[in-house]
């Protein structure tokens, strides 16, 4: 089974090459097939067993441990366990859905929609500080085809999967960074009218996080003398001071990626400008690298630091929930609203992590998966609405159920799932983050639980406001076409099903995570 681990990374990488170098349509098909194979290969990584007598806190189901750079003592160490497995499968699924979606409708590069070509060609035209983007714009006609987009999506997949699978800190950092530039290109080439600014902000802001991550990683590696996550988990080798320093660095880095309020402002811009598939990947799995990293690397490697920072993390998480929800209540653009909703949802996930209890971290894991499924679906739907109505302004939308009842029904389903209706996927993570915080006891955590629960009510308020504006009332404008394409149904159906199935059978995600999280919490010894 070890070759599977390598194959899960090699297949999308090969698919990316094929997609990039084959002619347009063939490249897209080849890339989509690679994504399908990746998903098919990731599913059998599951192993229904747990080695309860291992010495380490991380006991992977499968492992690959090869020498990579002997001189620097770097190892190519991959592994999968109950914490990473659901995220690996989710990444495989969302990438496949996005690739398949581009087969049906490859978004046109932003250039063809904007007027910037003429202004760029004219000497002394509008000054654009993004010179890199200007050169990108020149080669767009060749670059901005569907197959390039598929290739970039696959490169992103390699990075995300690698991040979830890496059991070596340096390798983890490398994969973490692989994602950055392709995502930049996706936003900068296929984005909306203000894509240059959004892409630049995304890349610079997350690069700032990456620098801290690099420093944090090497603080740990140099102090402990090893980069092996399995050996490092539990933080035995590190002094308290080192752990606190390392955790602060790592936590800020992951907080930028997650994003945790107030380090979130790259997200709304990136989401609003990114093409539909970009938003889906971004919200669905890319943000999860931050929360996953916080659990596996932050909490695992520097538990003393985590315990020290937990109250601050908890307060910030609850601030994110409340601030995200309130800002959503005043949003006027559909994609921006959904982007801000991610801030609130990730707040619940981070609250779960901040409790440092088994309940809380398990809630964070299922919250992660649920948010990926539901927000992925929401962005697909928002993209479909924007494409049809040619606007995302809530004031210019309305009466969706009069014109396109199925689209309205699906949007209602996704919104209801996202507001955490019990019985659907979103409920478990949010409710049990609150339960975990309450369980921790004490005035601080009890207050945090109560405020987070109020945030849950605010979440309902802004999603119902969204539905009221978009689906109810008399029809505004024309939706073209009103019906759903078969490809859209095919791309959305798995997400709808998953939102329902994970909601009804949360053990699908939580069952396998229970023991590894228990071992982690035991090692952390909170």
């Amino acid at each position, binding site marked *: 089974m070890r070759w599977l681990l390598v194959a899960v990374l090699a297949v999308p990488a090969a698919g990316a090459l094929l997609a990039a170098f084959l002619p347009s349509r063939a490249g897209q098909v080849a890339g989509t097939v690679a994504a399908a194979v990746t998903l098919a290969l990731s599913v059998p990584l599951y192993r229904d067993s747990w080695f309860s007598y291992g010495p380490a806190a991380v006991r992977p189901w499968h492992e690959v441990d090869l020498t990579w750079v002997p001189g620097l003592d770097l190892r190519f160490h991959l592994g999968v366990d109950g914490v990473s497995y659901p995220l690996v499968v989710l990444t495989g699924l969302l990438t496949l859905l996005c690739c398949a979606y581009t087969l049906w409708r490859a978004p046109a590069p932003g250039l063809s929609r904007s007027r910037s070509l003429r202004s760029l060609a004219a000497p002394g035209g509008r000054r654009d500080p993004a010179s890199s983007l200007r050169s990108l714009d020149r080669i767009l006609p060749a670059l901005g085809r569907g197959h390039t987009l598929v290739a970039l999506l696959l490169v992103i997949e390699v990075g995300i999967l690698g991040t979830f699978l890496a059991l070596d800190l340096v390798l983890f950092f490398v994969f973490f960074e692989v994602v950055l530039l392709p995502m930049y290109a996706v936003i900068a080439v296929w984005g909306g009218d203000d894509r240059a600014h959004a892409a630049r902000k995304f890349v610079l802001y997350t690069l700032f996080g990456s620098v801290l991550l690099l420093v944090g990683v090497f603080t740990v590696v140099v102090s402990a003398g090893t980069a092996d996550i399995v050996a490092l988990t539990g933080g035995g080798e590190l002094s308290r001071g080192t752990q606190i320093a390392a955790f602060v660095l790592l936590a800020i880095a992951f907080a930028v990626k997650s994003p945790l309020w107030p380090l979130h402002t790259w997200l709304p811009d990136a989401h609003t400008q990114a093409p539909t598939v970009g938003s889906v990947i971004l919200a669905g799995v890319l943000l999860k690298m931050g929360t996953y990293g916080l659990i596996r690397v932050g909490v695992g490697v520097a538990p003393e630091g985590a315990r020290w920072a937990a109250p601050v993390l908890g307060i910030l998480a609850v601030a994110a929930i409340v601030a995200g929800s309130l800002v959503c209540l005043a949003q006027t653009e559909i994609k921006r609203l959904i982007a801000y909703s991610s801030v609130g949802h990730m707040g619940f996930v981070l609250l779960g992590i901040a409790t440092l209890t088994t309940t809380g971290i398990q809630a964070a894991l299922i919250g992660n998966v649920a948010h990926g499924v539901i927000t992925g679906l929401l962005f697909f739907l928002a993209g479909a609405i924007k494409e049809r109505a040619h606007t995302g302004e809530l004031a210019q939308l309305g009466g969706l*159920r009069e014109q396109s009842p199925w689209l309205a029904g699906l949007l209602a389903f996704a919104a209801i799932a996202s507001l955490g209706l019990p019985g659907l996927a979103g409920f478990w993570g949010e409710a049990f983050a609150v339960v975990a915080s309450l*369980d921790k006891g004490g005035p601080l955590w009890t207050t945090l639980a109560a405020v987070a629960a109020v945030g849950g*009510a605010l979440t309902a308020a802004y999603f119902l406001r969204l539905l009221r504006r978009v689906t109810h009332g008399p029809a505004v404008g024309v939706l073209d076409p009103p019906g759903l394409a078969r490809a859209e149904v095919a791309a959305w159906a798995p997400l709808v099903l998953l939102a329902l199935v994970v909601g009804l059978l949360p053990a699908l995600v939580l069952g396998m995570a229970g023991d590894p999280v228990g071992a982690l919490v035991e090692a952390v010894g909170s």
Partner: protein
Amino acid sequence: MIPGVLLPAVPFAAALVGLLLPLGARKAAATVGVTGAAAALVIAVLLDKTESSREWVRIGDLTVTFGVRIDQPAALVAIAVGVVALAVQVYSITYLADDERYPPYAAQVSLFTAAMLLVVVAGDLIMLLVGWEVMGICSYLLIAHNRHLPEAPGAAVKAFILTRVGDVGFLLGIAVLGIGAGTFRIADVLAHDYSATTLTVAGLLLLAGVAGKSAQFPLHTWLPDAMAGPTPVSALIHAATMVAAGIYVVTRLYPLFTGTALAVLGVMAAITILLGALAATAQDDIKRVLAWSTVSQIGYMAGALAVGSTAAALFHLLTHAAFKALLFLAAGCVIHAVDSNLMSRMGGLRRDMPVTFWSFAIGLGALAGLPPLAGFWSKEGIINAAHHPHGAAPEWVGWLVWLAALAGVAITALYATRLLKGTFLGEAKTHGHEAPPLMRWPVALLTIPSALLGLAIFWPAFREAIGLEEAHIDAWVLLPVALLAAGAVLGWRGVPTVPAFARAFWLDEVQHFLLVRPVRFAARGLRLADEAGVDGAVEGTGRAAVRLGQQVASAHRTGLPRAATAVLAAAVLLAALGVIL
């Protein structure tokens, strides 16, 4: 195990099938909806007393179980839900004959039925919460159903948000109980030995959810607005079942409620009884009269719980389900016939709609507590329980509930008489016609329990099932009967409309001022702070970096003499440093 789980599962399956039907498939949708409700009713009748559970999921050291807990009250409430759901499904076929979105409507009613039955049989608090919230979302969807009412979407949002505000407490209450017991299984929670403080806190938190769902003061304002939903939905969700679910849940967890919690419930109930009844006296919209009446009647049930009698509460829940469903469906026949909700446009409909008139009259008689109709016996039970309180609550709670309940009897008789007179008697302002058979029959059949269900108090098996005491008729019975007569006379002679009653003491405005406006204000302010402050800092950093770069760059573009000076100065500086170090 199997029948217990099937009870919510069958209507749930009907809902899933119904939701996937195309909009044109009316017949299929009607068949699926009616079959689902009928099957649920059959299963409910066949239910046995069982308790079963298996692990659903473990989160940390907390266990969530999946199982049913069916006792005799649960079975009776399940039957009531089944009967009303079936009546409503059949009735809706005709009532929504011209509605293009009938298939999703029928499916949502099925989904609601499933959720309500899940609440009834749930053996675990988290399962109960699932049903509880799914009911809320169905209520939201169905209130917003009518596309021709501009106020419907707003009313739907209001209903969901207000109940959700209460549910913040409900979730926290469940969490407190679950954390204490290590499991959310109701049997284990009831068996667990909590400290008194924990119980009081958990009880008060749960009551917040109950107040939201059961439209008790101060979270009651959504229910009258919810009348924007189609009338059959009002009958099912906003009269017979969902709003009573809060009461049912309290009976289910009754041993957990301490004296303090019950005292709070008693005060809430007394206020709600009077508030709802007074507001009902001044409404022109017949559905709003009935909605306020529902608020008031659920207050009676809450009052019964506060004074220690779950049996009286359950009895009134069952009779209320029958007569209030009857009243709403009959009101639907009237609205269907005259195409208006307003009493001022009705009157004298008795001759045109005799079946509806007599059914409505029986329903109102039962509501007012006219002996020997159903409401008389159940309300008498509550008044009697309040007169002889035996719960954990302090004694003054009994007095409070007793006085409010007695005053409520007179006011209920007043508005019931006013409603009957304004709609069916007096001068005819419009013409109606008797409703089509599929609407008429459910109404006619619901008159049977509305009239006779109260007599079940003389049936020992029924008394035993819900723990009811024998009816004891003594001189005290005359007091409510006399109050009823006085109220009816006043209602017949007519009373002037009091603005405070018509606007329900302006509590909507108070709520808007205290809750909605501050949140909106905070939202706008925070958005501004987020964009200008937090994001402004980020953008500012970027701009500052660019500006700094430009300045440094321009500093490097300088003439030869100054550059040469700079180089020399630097060389001297470095040399000096080298010597010193």
